[in-house]
C-alpha cells in the first residue's frame, strides 16, 4: 500500500449574462430629504452578496458614503423587473441597472445644486456626499442640503431609473452562427490541484487548490474570495464525491439524506490559495465581470488530471470515487491505436452502447 502524489490543472472560461441575452434588469433610486439613498431592484441575493455589491456600486457612482445607501430587493410591488439571479448576471447586469439609475440621480443632484450654487452643473462634482465646484473647493453644498432644497423648496423628488438590457442574439440553427455577441463579457480562470491517491482504497485526497480568476474588477474582493472558495468546494464535490445516481444510468439507490448523499464537509477541505487578476471589461460596472457560477467548473478536470499524474489512470466518468479509481487501476485500460488515431473510452461510446452503432446521433451531415 502506498499513497501517490499527483498534480493536474485546467483553464476555463465562462460567460456573463443569459446566453443570447434578452434578460433585462431594472432599478430605480430615490433620495430622502437628508440625501440618504433608497435603491429598489428585484435582484435576489442568494447568499453571494449581490445586495452589498450593488450598494457599493451606487455609493461610488453617486459619490456618497457607502452607509448612506439602502437597497430594497424584497418584493415585486416596489421593485422593477430583474430577470433573476442566474447566469452569473447579478454584478454585471443588475449592477449596471443600479449604476445607470444612479447616474441619472447624480445628474438631478447636480441640476439642483447648480441652482443653489449658481454654478453650471458641468463644473460640479460629487465626492463624499458633497457637491463641490471644480477648482473652487470652497464653493460647495452637501447632497443632504440639495435633497432638502429639492423636497421643500423646489417641490421635486430626486429620483432616477435604469435598465440594463442587451438585445436577444439570434442563432443560426444550421451552423451555430450568431449575428451579435450572445453574452455581456467572458471571465477566465485556472486551477491547479495537488492530491494523493491511496492505491489500496482508491481514495483521492485533494491537498491543495491554487486558483487564479480574472474577474475584470473585484467590486468587493472579500466576496469574490467567498465565491472562489465556495465554488472550489462544490467543484471538489463534483470531482470526487457527489452523484445523484450512484449507479447511473440506473435511477435506483439514490441518497435521500445528507448521510447518504455526500457533499464535501470540513474534513474534506484542502488548502485553497486564491489569486485575483483584474483586466477590466469594457461595459461592466467599474470594469467588473462575472465570478459566480464558474467557480465550480475548473476543479473536476484538474483533479482527474492529477489522478492520472499520480497513478496513471484516466477517470472520465465523474466523480472519481474510490471504486472507480480502484477498478481503473486494476483494469489498466489502454486506448485503441489505429494508424494516427488514438481512441480512448470506446466502451462508453454511443457507437458501442446503442444497438444500432449510434445511428441518428452520428450519421448525418
Amino acid at each position, binding site marked *: 500500500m502506498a499513497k501517490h502524489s499527483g498534480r493536474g490543472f485546467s483553464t*476555463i472560461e465562462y460567460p456573463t449574462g443569459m446566453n443570447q441575452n434578452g434578460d433585462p434588469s431594472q432599478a430605480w433610486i430615490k433620495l430622502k430629504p437628508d440625501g440618504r439613498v433608497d435603491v429598489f431592484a428585484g435582484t435576489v441575493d442568494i447568499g453571494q452578496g449581490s445586495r452589498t455589491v450593488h450598494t457599493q456600486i451606487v455609493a461610488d457612482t453617486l459619490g456618497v458614503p457607502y452607509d448612506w445607501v439602502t437597497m430594497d430587493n424584497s418584493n415585486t410591488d416596489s421593485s422593477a423587473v430583474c430577470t433573476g439571479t442566474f447566469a452569473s448576471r447579478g454584478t454585471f447586469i443588475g449592477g449596471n441597472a443600479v449604476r445607470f439609475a444612479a447616474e441619472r440621480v447624480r445628474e438631478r443632484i447636480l441640476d439642483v445644486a447648480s441652482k443653489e450654487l449658481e454654478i453650471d452643473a458641468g463644473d460640479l462634482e460629487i465626492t463624499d456626499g458633497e457637491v463641490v465646484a471644480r477648482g473652487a473647493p470652497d464653493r460647495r453644498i452637501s447632497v443632504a442640503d440639495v435633497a432638502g432644497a429639492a423636497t421643500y423648496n423646489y417641490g421635486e423628488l430626486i429620483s432616477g431609473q435604469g435598465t440594463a438590457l442587451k438585445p436577444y442574439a439570434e442563432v443560426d440553427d444550421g451552423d451555430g452562427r450568431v449575428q451579435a455577441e450572445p453574452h455581456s463579457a467572458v471571465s477566465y480562470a485556472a486551477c491547479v490541484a495537488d492530491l494523493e491517491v491511496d492505491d489500496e482504497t482508491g481514495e483521492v485526497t485533494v491537498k491543495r487548490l491554487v486558483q487564479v480568476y480574472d474577474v475584470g474588477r473585484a467590486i468587493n474582493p472579500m466576496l469574490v474570495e467567498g465565491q472562489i472558495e465556495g465554488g472550489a468546494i462544490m467543484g471538489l464535490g463534483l470531482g470526487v464525491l457527489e452523484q445523484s445516481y450512484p449507479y447511473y444510468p440506473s435511477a435506483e439507490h439514490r441518497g435521500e439524506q445528507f448521510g447518504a448523499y455526500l457533499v464535501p464537509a470540513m474534513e474534506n477541505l484542502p488548502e485553497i490559495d486564491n489569486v485575483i487578476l483584474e483586466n477590466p471589461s469594457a461595459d461592466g460596472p467599474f470594469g467588473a465581470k462575472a465570478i459566480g457560477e464558474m467557480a465550480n467548473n475548473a476543479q473536476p478536470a484538474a483533479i482527474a488530471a492529477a489522478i492520472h499524474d499520480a497513478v496513471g489512470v484516466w477517470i472520465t466518468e465523474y466523480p472519481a470515487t474510490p471504486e472507480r479509481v480502484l477498478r481503473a487501476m486494476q483494469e489498466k485500460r489502454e486506448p485503441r491505436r489505429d494508424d494516427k488515431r488514438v481512441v480512448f473510452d470506446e466502451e462508453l461510446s454511443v457507437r458501442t452502447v446503442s444497438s444500432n452503432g449510434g445511428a441518428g446521433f452520428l450519421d448525418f451531415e
Partner: protein
Amino acid sequence: MKAVGARLPRYDGVAHVTGRSVFVDDVRIPGTLVAKALRSPHHSARITRLDTSTAERLRGVRAVVTYADVPLNVYGHLEALGIPADEPLLAEDDVGYRGQPIAAVAAEDADTALEAVDAIEVEYEERTPFFDMRKALDPDAPKFHQWGLVYPHFGSYNHRRVRRGDVDWAFEKADVIVSGVYRPQAIEQCPLETQVAVAVPDPDGRLTIYSCTQAMYFSMGVVAAHLQVPLNRLKFVGGTVGGGFGGKVDSASDTICALLAQKSRRPVKWRWTREEELLVSSTRAAWHVEIEDAVSGDGWILGRRTLTLHDAGAYARFSPYGVTKHAFHHTGAYTIPNLRFDGFVVFTNRSPTSAMRGYGVTSVSMAVELHMTRVADVLGMNPWEVRLKNANRIGDTTANRVVMQDPSTVPVTLAAAERVGEQLGQEYVAMTRDRRSGDLLPAHLVAQQAPEGAHVLEDEGGAA
C-alpha cells in the same frame, strides 16, 4: 472611489450566522394551512384512475387540487425563448418520473394533509422506464414522451449544431487524432433551505407569495401563466434565499401553493422535506460528451468533432437552453477554427433536470480540460504549453463567430504556473493575450481572426 474595491462585510452576514435573518420558513401567518403532495411512485406509468372525493371529505382538509383545477396546466417556462410547453403542473394522463406531483392537499395540520394524500385513489398502468440516453434512438426504446426521446425543436433540427470551417481538412491534415468520452454526473444543488413557499390570499383574492425563488419576476410570470391572472393579482415577497445554486430559478413550490391558497381561501405553506429535495427536485443534468480532436505533431488543435447528449429527465424545462450554451462554449478557453458539434437533449424517466451553477458550461470544462490533458499526454508535450499555444487571444473568434474582446486564457494560465513554480519554455512565459501574429498565427488560424474593432466575424472566407 471608496466603496468599490473595499472589503466590506455582507449586509446580512451577522443576521445569517446569528439566526436572525427571516427566510420563507420563518414567515408566520395566523391560520396557515399545511400542504402535501401526492407523488408518483413509478418512473413511468399511465394514470388510469384518479379520485380525490374521499380525501376531500376528511375532517380538516380545506382543498385538494388536481390537473382539473389548473387554468393552464401545461405551460412552458421558457416559451419566450422558443422552447414549447411539455410539462403539466399536475400530472394528467401519465407520469414520467418517480416523485412527479399528481395532486396536492391543504389541511389544518401536516398529519391530516398526509392522511388525505393517502386517501386519494389512483391507479397506474406501469410502463418500461427508459434511462440510458445513449440508447434513445434504438428502435425498441420505450418512447414515453410526446416528442419521442429526443427534443426536436432546435429550429427544424433535433439537435443544436455548430458547423464551422473545414473539419474534414483538419482530420486529413492531422498528425494525431485523439478521441475520448467524458461523463459529467448529475448532482443535487443541496441548499440548506428546501423548496418552500407561503401563499396568502387577500380578502379580494390577490395573492401574496413568500418565495425562495432566485428570480422573483420570472417565478411571478410562471404563476400568473398557470393561474391565468394579470401580474397585479400577485405580489412576490423574497430576495433572501437559503441557498439556491440554480435549483430555485425554475419554480418548484410557488404555483401549487398558490393554487391551494386560491381554492381554500386560506394562507397555505408548502415546505418540501429533505427527501423531496434530494429525490424529486431538479438536479444538475448528467452529460455524455464525445470529443475527437485533430492535432498537429507540434500541438495545434486543427479541428474538433463533438457529440454531446444531455440528460433532460422527463421534461424539457431549461435543457435546450443549457445545450445551446454548451454548444457556444464547447471549445473551452481555446481557439479551434474547424468544428462540427451536435448536441442532443434526451428525455429519460428521471426527475427533470434544470439549472445549476455553471449551467451548460461546467460539462464543457469537465470534458474539454481532461481531453486537453490527454492530448498533451499522447503528444508527449507539456500540458501547460499545449493550452497556451491554442489559447483564446484578442481578435480570435468563438465557435459561433463572436470576436473575443478581452480573453484571459494566457494571463490566468501563466499566473497559475508561476504560483506553483511550473517551469515553462521562455517563448511561453513571454506570451500575452494580444492579437496573434508571427509563429502564433499559423495558417489554420488566419481566416478565423477578425478585423480590429469587429464584434462578430462576418466572413471568414475559405478554411486554411
